[in-house]
């Protein structure tokens, strides 16, 4: 597609529920990133995929968070047993390749998650 698409744009859930957030990157981009942006903060890195594999998941806060990219394109961020502290905007970005800073990341508009 023309840009990075994220769905849903807004998600309200109750504490303890399971949620999935979807990211559709730019066609042909092999690198995909998830970030989390809490209120009043800058985006924080969660996980990076190169193709189908998670090359760096050092930003995932705990084992309730998991992400997949089974065919090297669309990615899903999964959050189990949601907590109020998970409320944030989840941003997805893609780039042509990974590697050095010369490859610019293109961000989606984000999925706003609210846990009641």
């Amino acid at each position, binding site marked *: 597609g023309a840009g990075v698409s994220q769905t849903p744009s807004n998600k309200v859930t109750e504490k303890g529920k399971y949620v999935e957030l979807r990211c559709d990157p730019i066609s042909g981009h092999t690198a995909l990133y998830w970030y989390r942006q809490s209120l009043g903060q*800058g985006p*924080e890195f969660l996980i990076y995929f190169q193709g189908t594999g998670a090359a*760096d998941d050092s930003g995932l806060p705990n084992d309730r968070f998991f992400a997949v990219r089974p065919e090297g394109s669309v990615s899903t961020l999964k959050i189990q047993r949601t907590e109020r502290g998970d409320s944030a905007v989840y*941003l997805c970005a893609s780039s042509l390749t*990974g590697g050095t*800073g010369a490859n*610019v990341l293109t*961000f989606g*508009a*984000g999925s706003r998650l609210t846990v009641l």
Partner: protein
Amino acid sequence: AQSVTQLDSQVPVFEEAPVELRCNYSSSVSVYLFWYVQYPNQGLQLLLKYLSGSTLVKGINGFEAEFNKSQTSFHLRKPSVHISDTAEYFCAVIPYGGATNKLIFGTGTLLAVQP
């Protein structure tokens, strides 16, 4: 480890006035430097980047930034702002030699342009 500091959480300015948004970073290795802009309900958009070469970098929408290695700064400037420049601005770095494009962001500065 790297960190990015944006000292000003909000900068109010009148239309057509100049503006400077400050960014300082801390890193034990050299870094690439970026400024992103986030308009309401939109994704982050790259304004400009410094990879190497000339320390004065020009970006979109009339913005520019200057890399100062000795002061570890990368301040963003615009000589005359418009109402449409109202947005959140994020400074970010990527360390040299990393295996990923893992951006490390500051906390952002809200530029509020008033008529």
